[in-house]
């Protein structure tokens, strides 16, 4: 368990990449100072028999705090990813924002994914939200690329790259 405290006006950008080695990843992050912010970028690349259980807890403890958690996972072969996020905004943390997005792309027949993006909001003058998708590559996208002459494998590669680019260009 990694514990991090973010202080007043501090902006932490935390990139984490998992390539299959670790079986557990956990973070406990507190936005303790006024105006502190967190951008947590998690890239998960699982293949063969890789398995991981992830727990990311983010606690907004002050006013004007912001968090953005972007999780993108590519699950191939018989790998499986279990992502658990808990974003909490404490009472009194007015003007805070929290956003969590978790996308798991299942590339092969035996791939598995689980995502539990939980929220606990005790203050109303905030904006909080999350979005999760788990599943295969979008058929329409595949068809479109293949209709331009790309093989299924090439098209898949392109789409996966695009999926990852989304991660690298998070700001946009």
């Amino acid at each position, binding site marked *: 368990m990694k514990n991090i405290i973010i202080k007043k006006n501090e902006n932490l950008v935390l990139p984490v990449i998992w390539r299959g080695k670790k079986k557990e990843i956990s973070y406990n992050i507190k936005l303790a100072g006024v105006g502190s912010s967190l951008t947590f970028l998690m890239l998960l690349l699982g293949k063969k028999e890789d398995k991981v259980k992830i727990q990311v807890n983010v606690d907004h403890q002050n006013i004007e705090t912001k968090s953005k958690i972007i999780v993108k996972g590519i699950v191939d072969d018989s790998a499986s990813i279990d992502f658990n996020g808990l974003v909490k905004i404490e009472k*009194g943390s007015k003007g805070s924002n929290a956003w969590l997005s978790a996308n798991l792309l299942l590339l092969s027949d035996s791939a598995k994914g689980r995502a539990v993006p939980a929220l606990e909001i005790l203050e109303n003058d905030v904006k909080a939200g999350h979005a999760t998708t788990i599943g295969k590559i979008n058929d329409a996208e595949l068809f479109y690329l293949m209709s331009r002459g790309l093989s299924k494998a090439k098209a898949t590669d392109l789409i996966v790259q695009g999926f990852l680019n989304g991660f690298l260009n998070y700001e946009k």
Partner: protein
Amino acid sequence: MDMKKSSTINNQYTYGFHKPEKSSFKTPLGINEKVVEAIFSYKNEPLWMREFRLKALKIFKQKKMPSFGPDLSELNFDKLCFYNSPSNNKFRKWSDVPKDILDTYNKIGVPEAEKKFLAGVEAQYDSEVIYSNLKNHWEKLGVIFTDMDTAVKKYPELVKEYLGTLVSVDDNKFSALNSAVWSGGSFIYVPKGVSVPIPLQAYFRINAKAVGQFERTIIVAEEGSFVHYIEGCSAPIYTNDSLHAAVVEVFVKKGARVRYTSIQNWSGSVYNLVTKRMLIEENGIGEWVDGNLGSKVNMKYPAMILKGKGARGELLSLAYAGKNQYQDTGGKAIHLAPNTTSTLISKSVSKNGGRASYRGLVKIAKGAKGSSSHVRCDALLLDDKSRSDTYPVNDVQEQDVILGHEASVSKVGEQQLFYLMSRGLDEIQATSLIVNGFIEPIVKELPLEYAVELNRLINLSMEGAIA
């Protein structure tokens, strides 16, 4: 032992649509074999039901309380009464009805006749004439619509075929409790190919009483049939009971469609812990419309098991958590077959320190190829005292699927408030409009009378909150 029985009961239960409950009966506090035996014999049930109840009691004693959700530690089973016959249950003097309940009825426009029924002053909604016309209609179709107490005696084979098969006795502590002490509830059977055009409403049941504590409901829709069942009411129903634990099992067979609309607005300190499940076969459609307005603690997660290929499940859930209320609601969708789809939409409003939590599960099992699920939960926090949580579990074991989930939590938008106020509406009116607009996707699926009452209720509570 102080069981009161003021008249002898024959071995043959004479059921009829005009038989009023003559005797009043109440079990002593607490739950044990003697209480369960008393219920069984007072209701004069067949022997197989006795076994069912006693077995359930054993399981109830072994089961642990749920490890998640609201704090249930205040529930003291030894101090509760587990069976209270209708004529005992809610008879009150008109003068005893709390003034704020009467005020609410007046303001939301509850008809005179209904007020007495809802307030528990009368044991039965006097709807004899309407009732018998409708009864003829569905009898002609071959539809069985009766209360569970009657069904157990009149249609035992049918009941035995389904009871406890979808929500097993040992599913959780409260399904075990219900199985041991249940009373009342509906039994509906729709034959193959029959479409019931008018919704079946709970208060048209035989000897309808206001909803009981441990109702047991079974709905069976045979192949290609359709039925819409409605229970509950948006107007507050006052009750002295502290624990309600109903169990609902719905069987949607191949190509059939069932919509189950339920609105609860228990006034008073009620713990409402319900287990509801739908089993949907090939190309069947199952719909839950779930309105949660009352209770001190409400735990309810209507579930849809998509067992046959092409099965579709939809859940529309509304939760309103006001002062001292904890709404822990949501739903479950379990995809077990290919090409199944599920849609879960949840809207919650928290105000005055209320807490609304969405608790959901979407599980797509291996082999459920071509399936898709979409979940959307939105929460509106009206002040800084209230709380909203989301606990969504998304578990995908099959690659060839799409699962999407979105959630948002916010307060009433400043721009929207300004816009509406700039047209002359004051802050309360503007907020009411916005809140009613927020829940519109759910309300539009409710029968008109419920929708109207619900909108008025929201307006009333906005006045209370901000004034």
